[in-house]
């Protein structure tokens, strides 16, 4: 499977219309955040609930926001996603790194790694797992869901799909 270049991925996000980027880092997201930071597009956040709330504020100000986070941070963000975005119909794109995928990771990632898809189904946030083969279609689907349903939509990002700064 081809590895997506971080530059190409950021360009694809921008071409889709996304123009506000915040989040909390993860190693899997390192390359994307580096490119975004180089282009002065990225506003670092200190917690994932803060990040999704900043994205909500940016949307209220006319932006099309993206939040990058490790899946452990999804736990931090849950209350804001459920009692702000989902009930107020405020959309954003969540790019969530899938730590603990197939149980191959440090112990702290295993429970979230295993249950994340069910968790998203339970709170009814639509998601897809990104791959280089489906990138174009995934982003088209993301934009469509964002505009039509006006709720958060998630892309799961496994290790090695988008190039990171660390080998």
């Amino acid at each position: 499977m081809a590895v997506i270049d971080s530059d190409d991925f950021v360009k694809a996000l921008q071409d889709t219309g996304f123009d506000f980027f915040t989040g909390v880092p993860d190693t899997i997201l390192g390359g994307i955040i580096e490119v975004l930071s180089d282009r002065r597009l990225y506003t670092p956040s200190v917690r994932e609930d803060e990040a999704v709330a900043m994205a909500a504020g940016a949307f209220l100000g006319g932006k099309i926001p993206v939040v990058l986070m490790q899946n452990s941070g999804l736990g931090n963000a849950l209350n804001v996603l459920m009692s702000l975005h989902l009930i107020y119909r405020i959309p954003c794109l969540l790019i969530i790194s899938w730590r603990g995928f197939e149980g191959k990771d440090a112990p702290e990632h295993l429970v979230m790694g295993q249950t994340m898809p069910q968790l998203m189904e339970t709170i009814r946030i639509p998601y897809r797992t990104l791959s280089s083969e489906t990138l174009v279609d995934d982003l088209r689907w993301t934009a469509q869901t964002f505009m039509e349903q006006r709720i958060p939509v998630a892309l799961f990002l496994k290790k090695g799909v988008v190039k990171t700064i660390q080998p």
Partner: protein
Amino acid sequence: MQSRAQAMQALFDLLADEPVIVCNGFPSREAQKIRDRPGTFYMIGSMGVAASIGLGLALAKPDQQVVVFDGDGNVLMGMGTLATIGALRPKNLTHVVFDNEVYGTTGNQPSYSRVVRLDHVAKAAGYATVERVWEREDILYEFKHMLANDGPHFLLIKVNEQIEDADRVALDPPEITKRFRAAVVG
């Protein structure tokens, strides 16, 4: 000491069409009762992130003065955001905190703001202006000054525990989003 509603009324009298994000609980209910306006975003949930929403809006609309009406319990819950605001230093953000030293909406359980100086925390975090006020004249003077100058500003208003008899927020949340966004973005 003023009630939060009295202090809020004084602030609304100085506002034109600046967007205001109001934290959840009674502050939003009181804001609706005192001055319902399209440019007010009433929060009914997601405690602790009013300032984060305000920050996101301030970054998205750098030429627009953005005001946050927050509470001490809310600030304590999302205290990391003081660091984010202090680091990013958006010039167009005024963060007002009505500090009654209790969780008033849930029955006046004491908050740590009676021992922890939130204004000192904001100062240390790097807000451009930090003021702590009690009296109406001081509230008006400082808020006016903040709206006219570069921020980020932190206005800590010490208020009493009195809660205004105010109904729940009447608009449905998606209507609040639509109305607010139309007022801000046009």
